[in-house]
């Protein structure tokens, strides 16, 4: 169990027995007040995010893996090659040390898979009840590939909209485990670091216009953000949207729109029409892009995202409001 320490011996023990054991590298091992890192170029991408997911462990990942993937993916979405992460833990007194070790080990494995180093960090233990188990903040630095110009504001009319795989897996997995909403289905979070897959797309250079990972708020929010920032409209083909059958079925059961569910291992790519098929081919050759499909295209500047249903009508895809709650009948 983690006790409430004042920054003394306990913190020292955590650092040497746990964090250095798993995260260890020459920069972190020096335990300086700040890490000094080498950057080969001037243009860097820099991002931060905090993770508070409950439950902390879920099929396909845990809060630690999520914290590494989330920040790595945010960097990748700007065309950056992620290099260094910082990690901040806020731990509630009483968290089992074995649980913390599982989280830390998973973070180290994910960082290694993604090819990033954790070079600085911080830990605070707070009193029982002052936090819910563990919160993790990660920040990341990446080098921007200057042969790219990727931005949420770059979608052009005529561009193709691609999703890298099935929609809603993470959100439905977490929802299915929530207290008071327990139901059993063969669900698994898609939580994964996407930087290596995205790097494969760098060869398309300026033809990659937008990359966005549809995390909280889901695909619906991301598409609306892109349409708003780029001043384009979008038309999405309902029949092309990829869903795992169990996610679709769970959504039907709960009355939820899978386009509102979070994803943690998927991205939306808006690309020039001329390269769309080649982009798909590259995505299909990678394990995290095997189910990639074109789901629609960008249109003139209506800034509205429309869905063409399978019966031929259209409706708008709106962003989700409020909590995602089940319906009752």
């Amino acid at each position, binding site marked *: 169990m983690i006790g409430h320490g004042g920054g003394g011996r306990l913190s020292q023990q955590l650092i040497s027995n746990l964090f250095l054991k798993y995260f260890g590298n020459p920069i972190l091992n020096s335990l300086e007040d700040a890490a000094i890192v080498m950057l080969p170029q001037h243009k860097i991408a820099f991002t931060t995010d905090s993770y508070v997911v409950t439950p902390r462990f879920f099929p396909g990942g845990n809060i630690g893996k999520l914290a590494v993937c989330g920040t790595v993916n945010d960097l990748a979405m700007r065309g950056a090659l992620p290099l260094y992460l910082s990690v901040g833990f806020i731990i509630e007194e009483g968290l089992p040390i074995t649980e913390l070790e599982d989280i830390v080990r998973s973070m180290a494995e994910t960082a290694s898979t993604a090819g990033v180093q954790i070079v600085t960090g911080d830990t605070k233990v707070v009193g029982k009840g002052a936090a819910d188990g563990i919160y993790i903040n990660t920040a990341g630095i990446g080098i921007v590939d200057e042969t790219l110009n990727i931005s949420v504001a770059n979608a052009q009319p005529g561009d193709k909209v691609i999703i890298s795989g099935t929609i809603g897996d993470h959100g439905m997995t977490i929802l299915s485990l929530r*207290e*008071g*909403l*327990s*139901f059993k289905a063969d669900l698994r979070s898609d939580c994964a670091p996407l930087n290596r897959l995205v790097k494969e797309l760098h060869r398309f250079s300026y033809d990659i216009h937008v990359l966005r990972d549809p995390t909280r708020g889901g695909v619906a929010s991301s598409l609306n953000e892109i349409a708003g920032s780029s001043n384009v409209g979008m038309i999405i083909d309902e029949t092309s949207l990829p869903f795992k059958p169990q996610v679709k079925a769970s959504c039907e059961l*709960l*009355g*939820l729109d899978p386009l509102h569910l979070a994803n943690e291992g998927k991205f939306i790519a808006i690309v020039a029409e001329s390269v769309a098929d080649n982009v798909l081919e590259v995505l299909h050759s990678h394990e995290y892009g095997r189910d990639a499909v074109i789901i629609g295209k960008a249109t003139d500047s209506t800034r*509205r995202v*429309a869905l063409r*249903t*399978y*019966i*031929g*009508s*259209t*409706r*708008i895809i*709106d962003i989700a*409001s*409020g*909590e995602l*709650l*089940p*319906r*009752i*009948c």
Partner: protein
Amino acid sequence: MHEVELVQLLISEIKKCGQPFAFMEVCGTHTMAISRYGLRQVLPDNIKLLSGPGCPVCVTANRDIDTAITFAKIPGLILTTFGDMIRVPGSKSSLAGERAEGRDIRVIYSVLEALEIAKQNPSREVVFYAVGFETTAPSTAFGIMEASKAGLKNFSVICMHKTLPNALRALLDTGDLGINGFLLPGHVSAIIGAKGYAFLAKAYGIGGAITGFEPIDILGSILKLIRQQTAGPVIENEYRRVVKDNGNQAALMGMQQVLTACNSDWRGLGTIPCSGLAIKADWQEYDALRRFEIELDEPVEHKGCSCGDILRGIKLPAACPMFGVACTPENPIGPCMVSSEGSCAAHYRYREQ
């Protein structure tokens, strides 16, 4: 035949009818499906679809929401309910607002979870706020029987269930609504059976079609209702793969064992005799309304909210001056904008291009 082709065929048949007809759906899941698939767009202008009192959250009267809120304020009590009820505004606040104030209000998906919470918290009163039509009432009855079997002493139910047939009767009694037929609910009918609607055709001369939830089901029923306009009103079961004439006997027997008909307040329709379900005296220890004494202020209706008219099908959501302006899913004023199955929420969320 491929599903899309079948849909096109149904639409072209419906388009052959040039006369104006209005059909009403009385099930929140139909409201959702019609909006979600954009069915109004593919129908000709002469066919109007109206939403009736089919969303269990929407038809819950302010007083009943105030009741739940009053329970939630009892110190130490755990109030459990279905998700959609949480954000519905009562006279002064909502359960979501009370939860933010620190009341212990938990969203559950099934009454069995409320029983589990009661088992895990033996020193606290656990109250299940039960709303919904005949689809959810059997599970509430089952939950009470389970609580009795398990000897739970800290579990009770605020039973606010409603039943549909008498509400349809009351709706039609309010005057000529210009409805030419009903799309009858698939889920409710699966419990009560197709027989329960015979009075619609006999007493009111209005036919109906028990309908599933896919575009084919809904369009197929619309075509049946159009044909009834010349052939005469009957109750047709277009959802035979699920709905039997006599319904689900096991569910009905469970309901009859624990619950009994009572008067019920409906938003927009007022008090309707024998349109609600109360807990029978034999099971009164599980009846939260008898177990606790609560005092309620007179409910306050929201000024300018058109939910009552919308639930009777005499006003469309867009005709409400607050729709999409003062009243949005982020900031709902009336329940029809809160529930995912509410007519206003469905119209807002899936508004056409």
